[in-house]
């Protein structure tokens, strides 16, 4: 098992899963849940200011969250696509949270399966994205769905380890006798 070079003893996500795998998992989820013609295009885009995130926590040899973030309007569109004919005329926050959360659940479950286990999967949560604790423990993809930007971030829950302190060797503390 590979360890992050800067974090002895702790698994970091870039050593466990790559962007292509996350992209493939998300793409399959979209086709199955949202629609056969609903592709994710691997092109970065600027997220709008008003975003919504849905995520699930993974707890195991690697602990963190699988977070989907997109514009609120896009999350509502996703909900309509997911529900199809069953979508109510007026979506409320519960509808969007439920549908967007379920997409995060499916993507997160399949990401978890690609990681070393055993791990447990939390229930989906929706709101403001959890903070990135360690920028080196993140695997992030940016895609477009129907031209709108969406980010999938697999991010560790633990802060980066402190840089090991290398004591300065004082010229007079080297034990050398004069």
């Amino acid at each position, binding site marked *: 098992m590979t360890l992050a070079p800067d974090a002895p003893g702790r698994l970091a996500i870039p050593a466990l899963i790559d962007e292509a795998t996350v992209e493939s998992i998300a793409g399959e989820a979209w086709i199955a849940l949202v629609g056969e013609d609903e592709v994710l295009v691997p092109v970065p885009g600027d997220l709008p200011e008003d975003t919504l995130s849905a995520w699930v926590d993974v707890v195991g040899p690697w602990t963190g969250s699988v977070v989907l973030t997109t514009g609120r309007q896009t999350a509502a569109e996703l909900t309509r696509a997911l529900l199809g004919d069953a979508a109510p005329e007026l979506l409320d926050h519960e509808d969007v949270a439920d549908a967007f959360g379920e997409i995060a*659940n499916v993507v997160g479950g399949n990401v978890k399966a690609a990681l070393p286990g055993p791990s447990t999967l939390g229930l989906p949560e929706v709101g403001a994205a959890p903070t990135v604790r360690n920028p080196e423990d993140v695997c992030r993809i940016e895609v477009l769905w129907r031209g709108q930007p969406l980010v999938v971030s697999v991010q560790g829950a633990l802060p980066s380890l402190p840089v090991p302190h290398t004591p300065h060797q004082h010229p007079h503390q080297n034990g050398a006798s004069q």
Partner: protein
Amino acid sequence: MRALVIDDSRAMRRIVSAALEGFGYETRQAGHGQEALDVLQEGYAPDLCTIDWNMPVMDGLQFVSAVRANPAWRALTLMMVTSESEQGQIVRALAAGAHEYVIKPFTADALRDKLALLGMLPEEAVL
């Protein structure tokens, strides 16, 4: 044939129910394992339960164990439909008494194939 669709996501309950209804099932829904047990105890007698794993109150594995502990529900076919796709979890669910395991995301065709393997496709869907 009747199916009880158990999932904490309303969206997923709608998707699974729509697929099953397309195969000719009549469906009811429950939002977690305890609610599903209540439905069974009220006398609803489905042929099939589709069961999510991660749910509040009572999860899918607890529901499977509870059903298998009651001889009155021995004939019930239990199918996990979940995003829990670790091999170890699949083994646990099957060992607890689930008959089949479908990993989300799935297509209606994949669900149909699993039901056919179990001999659980209504006649009109087989023809």
